[in-house]
């Protein structure tokens, strides 16, 4: 147990002693803050000027859907940041050959990987905290500017935030798993960006037209993540005939992705000879 705590301490220092964590955090704050604040303002303005909406306001979030959607951007848009952090933390070890001093200090490699996952989950949760603080602040500020209820006193809003932070933590663990499996830093970044921003959205959209594929698409990581949070662009657009997973099932699906990738990486690269 002492050995695990030492490894966890070491992995924390690894993340905190390089610049990437706060660079990612700043970009994330700007990104989710602008999205939440901007769209909250847009919806606020549209609610005051209904005559300006194209197509008579079809597809616009209405009433109680609006606040969760805006606050939810912390996770539904921001989840790419904890994945990147987890993936960079792992692939960096391969890239800079720091696995050598790491395994010299802690020859039990499984322990090192476990410590990495634990630290990623904690740092991912902190990223979640920062992202949700950002969207809650930016969204609520925009809403109150247009006289829309912020729902900040509503316990549902805080439950939403809690689930969103959980999803962010799990995404960081998925990043670690992906990093051990792919090992190349460039490849990992390309895969994360291409999959989260392009491949999965297209898959979900395509799958949503048929019932069978729609129910399978619920298990895609982004869909499972949306299920954990409880809000999604896709459920708004009315395309999804299938109900999303329960939030806890979504969490289990994310955890399963993290576990499969990490175990795969452990056997394919982590246990290998370090030359």
């Amino acid at each position, binding site marked *: 147990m002492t050995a695990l705590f030492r490894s966890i301490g070491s992995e924390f220092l690894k993340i905190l002693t390089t610049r990437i964590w706060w660079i990612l955090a700043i970009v994330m704050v700007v990104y989710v803050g602008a999205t939440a604040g901007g769209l909250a303002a847009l919806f606020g303005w549209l609610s005051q000027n209904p005559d300006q909406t194209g197509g008579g306001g079809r597809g616009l979030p209405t009433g109680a859907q609006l606040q969760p959607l805006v606050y939810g951007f912390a996770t539904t848009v921001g989840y790419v940041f904890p994945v990147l952090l987890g993936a960079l933390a792992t692939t960096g070890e391969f890239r800079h*050959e720091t696995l050598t001093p790491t395994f*010299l*200090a*802690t020859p039990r490699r499984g322990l090192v990987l476990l410590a990495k996952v634990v630290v990623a989950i904690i740092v991912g949760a902190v990223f979640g905290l920062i992202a949700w603080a950002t969207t809650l602040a930016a969204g609520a500020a925009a809403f109150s500017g247009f006289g829309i209820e912020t729902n900040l006193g509503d316990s549902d809003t805080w439950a939403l935030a809690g689930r969103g932070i959980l999803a962010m933590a799990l995404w960081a663990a998925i990043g670690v798993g992906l990093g051990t499996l792919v090992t190349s830093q460039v490849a990992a970044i390309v895969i994360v960006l291409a999959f989260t921003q392009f491949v999965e959205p297209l898959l979900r959209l395509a799958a949503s037209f048929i019932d069978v594929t729609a129910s399978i698409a619920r298990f895609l990581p982004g869909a499972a993540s949306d299920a954990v949070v409880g809000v999604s662009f896709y459920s708004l657009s009315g395309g999804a005939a299938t109900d999303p997973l329960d939030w806890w099932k979504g969490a289990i699906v994310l955890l399963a992705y993290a576990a499969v990738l990490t175990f795969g990486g452990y056997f394919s690269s982590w246990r290998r000879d370090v*030359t």
Partner: protein
Amino acid sequence: MPTGVPIEFSGVTKRFGAVTAVADLSFTVEPGRVTGFLGPNGAGKTTSLRMLLGLVRPTSGTATFGGTAYRDLANPLTTVGAALEAASFHPGRTAHNHLRVYAAAAGLPTSRVDEVLRRVGLGEYAKRRVGGYSLGMRQRLGLAYTLLGDPGVLVLDEPINGLDPEGIKWIRLFLRELAAEGRTVLVSSHLLSEVQQSVDEVVIIAKGRLVHRGTLATLDTEVAPHVVVDSPDRTRLGEVLTAEGFEFSTGRTGLLVAEGDPGRIGHLAFVNGVEISMLQRQKAGLEESFLTLVDGGEVVGGSTETTRVTDAAADATAEPAASVDAAVSTEPPAPEAPAGESPGRHADHDGEDQR
């Protein structure tokens, strides 16, 4: 004071597919002295060290620290300090933070980080990012890592690579100091001249196999021993040698006989009544012996060591020291050229093999 434990390689073999990188390697490295682990690039040194440190899994055999495999050491950094080729740093991390990461993993206090950085002379650069370090500074940082846990065993892969002359002088003294403290010190290098002033013992491998093991002094006496002998009547001397079954070649300063004991040649000449004008054991330079071992080739050039001429018939006018250069086997035979006139072609040697 930490005490060293012996490093033991026992039948260690590593195959990468069809390629055998290390073959049945067995040797022991004792505490209290500096052992050089030598071999040309690609001989299997780094692979052997990585197997010793549990980073590479041997195909067969074991490498241990006093019987315990690296993976099974309770807190490895306090038993063994190892530095493998100088690239294992995150360039964005400072030297201080780099060491803090591993001190935390080993449960060592941060105060150790400052101590070891001072000891290797990086104290004032501790807060700089490693990305801006020179190769020599990285080597020192690698060394600082090995000292974190104040271990009794040090394993250093090519620690002299990239150091400036001052750094080389420093590390030589440093290694001797560590060994004098009772630690086990194993230092790899592909150049004997790089480490010959700091090592007591050598382990030489070539193509993954052990080719020599012993003190530094054994290197030039045991490898390809030759005797140089000359006589006013070379033809007669040659006949006598041939009759006794000695193999020899004719050089400028005399006959180069494949025999390590000058006494036997002297005795042979005495018994057969052949006058001898010169008799000496050829001592190959350390580097030449080393190259012979790793290439499996001929001993070329080198200096000679004059031994006491046992035969009363030896000509007192022979100039023993003047023929030091004895470039016997490299030069074409030129019997009429005066002995000792060729330029000192071993002047670039590192000094210790010349007297």
